[in-house]
């Protein structure tokens, strides 16, 4: 039976209106509600369902980030994961943490924990990178199936339906493999209060990237973070002639 590793990220809650800091160095995160990345919830749900169908033996939830990421791990444990691993990265460093670093961490943990399957959300709703699954697959040299909307289990292989532009694609992958969950894979369950309480008894291991021998020096530099341009107001024109002259004026005709 398989051991499943699930990558989860703590992001600003999907319902929060994002505000840019006045010095354009980033977005306001202090005092803002955070929760688990919705795509990662789908990934956890899929792993937990595998466990319930006796297809998986153990579900391990991993999160890289500041101390507060532990809450996200708790939510994953409340949803049904067996144990958590918290890779502690200070708030400052976490801002520059890129999929390349996360994928190396996940790959190392996958080898240490001897897992057969890694499931992650297809992208995080904060930076929208959509790279972690692909890169993890690359680092490990494992088959990778991204944007899964259906996963069927066979003998040492998986039949995965992927969401691609304009349709669906069915691929077969041999395990061990890396999967990334798309929106329609399943409907994640709610982490109920009693389960959150019970999750406090489940083990969470805390480690640093240094323990794993992974270098997390920033590879990017943030130059400026800005709001998207505000849409300009339209106007109602009286007739077609005015429209044509307006279009000519704007150089569209």
């Amino acid at each position, binding site marked *: 039976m398989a051991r499943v590793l699930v990558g989860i990220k703590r992001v600003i809650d*999907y*319902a929060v209106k994002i505000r840019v800091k006045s010095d354009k160095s980033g977005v306001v995160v202090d005092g803002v509600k955070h929760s688990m990345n*919705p795509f990662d919830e789908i990934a956890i749900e899929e792993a937990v369902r595998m466990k319930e169908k006796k297809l998986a033996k153990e579900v391990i939830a991993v999160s890289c980030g500041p101390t507060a990421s532990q809450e996200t791990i708790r939510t994953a444990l409340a949803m049904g994961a067996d144990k958590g691993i918290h890779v502690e990265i200070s708030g400052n460093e976490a801002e520059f943490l890129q999929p390349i670093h996360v994928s190396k961490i996940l790959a190392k943990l996958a080898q240490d924990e001897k897992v057969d399957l890694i499931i992650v959300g297809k992208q995080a*709703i904060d930076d929208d990178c959509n790279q972690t699954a692909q890169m993890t697959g690359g680092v490990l040299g494992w088959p990778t199936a991204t944007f899964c909307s259906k996963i069927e289990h066979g003998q040492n292989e998986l039949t995965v339906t992927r969401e691609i532009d304009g349709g669906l694609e069915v691929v077969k992958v041999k395990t061990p493999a890396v999967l990334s969950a798309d*929106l329609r894979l399943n*409907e*994640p369950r*709610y982490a*109920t*209060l*009693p389960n959150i309480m019970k999750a406090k008894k489940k083990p969470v291991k805390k480690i640093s990237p240094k323990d794993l021998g992974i270098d997390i020096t920033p590879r990017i530099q943030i130059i400026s973070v800005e709001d998207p341009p505000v849409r300009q107001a339209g106007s109602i024109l009286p007739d077609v002639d005015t429209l044509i002259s307006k279009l000519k004026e704007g150089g569209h005709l």
Partner: protein
Amino acid sequence: MSQKSKTINLYKTLLYMGKDYPKGYDYFRVRLKKVFEKNRYETDTEKIEKMIAHGNFVIKELEALYMLKKYRTLKKRYYE
């Protein structure tokens, strides 16, 4: 579990769920409290049992509401 602790549990669970309420926690909490206070002198066990069952139904409804809201927001953001 006694009816009293069942009721207290229900209230706690609803309060916890109110934290995700779209109109805000305060909006939810005030209304939740009002509903519970309205029935505070109810003594008929059968009626209380029915109310608890209704409370548990509301919990399920809230879960469904949150799930749908999240799904719809994501669908709008990434798939349209």
